[in-house]
């Protein structure tokens, strides 16, 4: 009785708080925890049953790790893993540095109206879908009518068939990604900077600290917890690649696969015609599992250095 009684008492005491987390909790239960049971599909050869979804899952035959095999069956496994991880590392590092730098610059702009204009301008690409971004890039890189090849023409440089030449694509991909995402992240950091106590800066100024010293000794340390959290979350997604970026932007060009094929596009291409649900679930499970391990490890490392900055 004691335990249950205390439990209800706790609920009574924290009514208001619990009511506030209720919607989010329900959301997580229904859209994150309940579907987790579907993971078993990764170990089954999914076949339809006339009695509905659950019956299909139950009646499908167990196949062990068979569904995971296709991810590792060829030497492509190395290429897609390398591409996914390397691109994501670049995205995380560059995205962080540039977003924080932008946020600091925006915060330091004295003319607040102009700052808003810059901020909105940087934010805008975030709302574009990759399909549209893909066409933007295409208008620059098209072989016949692209802006870049036209400019090359003025300087007497031979036009380049961008979509069949993998050399420059790692750079193009990174630039396009940053162009689209930096605005959004810098707004998050900007909000954090706005929350820093102004008196800290005033005290620093009285002590004769210049702008650079203020940034290094006040702004960045105050941002560190947020930076750590966002980076940890990003590390958890290191095995996921932005499908649109790697599929739409290079226009699914086969000759570019060596530098644009990532786990997500590989899974899509392998399964779009066979529609094996078991295999796509297996791929998703594999990505989540690695992501989970990475988050736990990197969180553990952060905790070693600074307990307060760790996620949990």
């Amino acid at each position: 009785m004691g335990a249950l009684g205390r439990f209800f008492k706790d609920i009574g005491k924290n009514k208001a708080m619990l009511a506030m987390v209720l919607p989010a909790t329900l959301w997580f239960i229904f859209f994150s925890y309940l579907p987790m049971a579907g993971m078993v599909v990764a170990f089954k050869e999914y076949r339809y049953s006339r009695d509905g979804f659950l019956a299909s899952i139950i009646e499908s035959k167990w196949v062990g790790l068979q569904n995971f095999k296709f991810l590792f069956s060829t030497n492509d496994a190395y290429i897609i893993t390398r591409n996914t991880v390397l691109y994501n590392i670049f995205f995380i590092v560059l995205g962080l540095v540039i977003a924080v730098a932008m946020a600091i610059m925006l915060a330091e702009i004295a003319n607040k109206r102009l700052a808003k204009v810059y901020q909105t301008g940087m934010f805008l690409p975030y709302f574009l879908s990759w399909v549209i971004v893909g066409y933007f890039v295409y208008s620059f890189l098209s072989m016949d009518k692209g802006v870049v090849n036209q400019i090359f023409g003025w300087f007497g440089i031979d036009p380049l068939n961008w979509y069949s030449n993998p050399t420059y694509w790692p750079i193009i991909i990174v630039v396009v990604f940053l162009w689209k995402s930096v605005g959004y992240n810098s707004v998050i950091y900007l909000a954090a900077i706005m929350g820093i106590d102004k008196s800290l800066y005033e005290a620093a100024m009285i002590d004769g600290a210049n702008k650079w010293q203020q940034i290094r000794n006040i702004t960045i340390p105050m941002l560190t917890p947020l930076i750590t959290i966002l980076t940890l979350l990003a590390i958890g997604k290191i095995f996921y690649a932005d499908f649109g970026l790697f599929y739409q932007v290079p226009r699914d060009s086969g000759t570019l696969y060596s530098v644009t094929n990532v786990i997500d596009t590989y899974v899509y291409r392998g399964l779009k015609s066979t529609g094996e649900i078991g295999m796509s679930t297996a791929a998703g499970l594999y990505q989540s599992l690695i992501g989970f391990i990475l988050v736990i490890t990197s969180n553990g490392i952060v905790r070693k250095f600074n307990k307060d900055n760790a996620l949990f």
Partner: protein
Amino acid sequence: MKNKKIKFMPALALLLIVSIMLSACGGGKSDNAEGTAEKPVELIWYTIGTPQKDVDKVMAEVSKYTAEKIGVTIKMNMIDWGDYSQKLQVMTASGEAVDIMFTASWAFDYVQNARKGAFMQIDDLLAEYGKGIVDTLDPAFLEGSKIDGRNYGIPANKELPAQEVWRFNKQLVDKYKLDISNVYTLESLEPLLKTIKENEPDVYPLAVDKNQMPYVPYDYVIEKLPMGVSLDTTDYKIVNVLDSPEMKQMLNTMHKYYKVGYIPTEAATMDSLTDVQSTGKWFADRATSQPFADNLWSASYGYPVVSTPASEALIYNWSVMGSMQAISANSKYPEKAMEFLNLLNTDPVLRNMIDSGIEDVHYKKVSDTVMENLDESKNYDMPTFSLGNLMLTYLNPTDPDNKWEEFKKFNDAGTTAPLLGFNFDTSKVTTEIAAVQNVREEYWAPLMSGTVDPEVYLPRANEKFKAAGLDKIMEEAQLQLDEWRAANK
């Protein structure tokens, strides 16, 4: 804090169990007294095509008719071309209520989904409720769409063989007084392409996109995977088509054409030729034909198109399964669904209502077999070929009177391709297929469009195909093919 979390667990687990039970108990049993004119049952029908504004309006009329005849009403849901396969995949996997659905070799793959259990096996239903279908369809349709000896879908009565043709933009043919009567092979096109290239710099002489491939005389085991048997095969040996001398020659020619600029520079990444076709900035391309196809093309592009054969007319698996309707495995009223399909394929009134809408609203009849679209038809413009027996539909005023007779002649004249009726069961090699698909995606479009040099890329592609397990797939396919031949001697 930690303790509290643990005490939440029983409640959470309870919630989980309850919700699973609730969802499991969802499907109820049907009442047997339904399915009469007074108390019709509703059939849910998913079919392909851009959703039309007046579907519900037309289906209300259709339902009145079918309720009287066979005691069913129809709820039709259309899903757009590009989304159809994926949406249906999800719907069948999650067990949505569907009674009838469109399937084909190219959309919501018939063979694979039948094997996965998406469709109801209809041999008995067909014998009992589908006699009209059996009588009207060319037997080759039902024979060719059997999977492991059983039928899972009703093919539409339409053209049976597939014939490849070269299509030409007639304006340009006339302007330069070109002679297309001698064109048959890819090589024979060259002088014409040269003329166009020299005189019309803005026009693509040979319009090619990423989905096209040169015609080689092979019957593919799986479409767009490089394994097949030669059309004049006697030993039914499955070979790697990329290794064949015919394919090598084709790819060399394509690459030659690409280098001299007959083929669009970005052919390997072009999704479709729709833009080029609507502006008319093309001279020649390849397509699959049917009788009087030139009229259809000319009408849809708005300028005259002429064509000339590029291959023989052959009956392939994919041409037989080009358009089918199947009954869902979880249909509550399979008998009624079959009765409806039977009516759809035999009753001109129903077939034309589904196809053209309501008389005097969407179309008006000119004579017994000819109709004319009215303005309202823009709100109900259906893909005719996807909705059952084509030969019951009314003719357009521009169609020749003997259109359907010509179709029958065309069907009778078609010869069968070697693999007709053989359907590869891929379940033992799914891992390899997924890997091979990836290799195909990487090399297919650049090679087939002539964008890259086959001397360099063909060996590379073949090597990767081998590494991905193409040989194992071919071996398995050969095994099944030999068994199938032994059983069908």
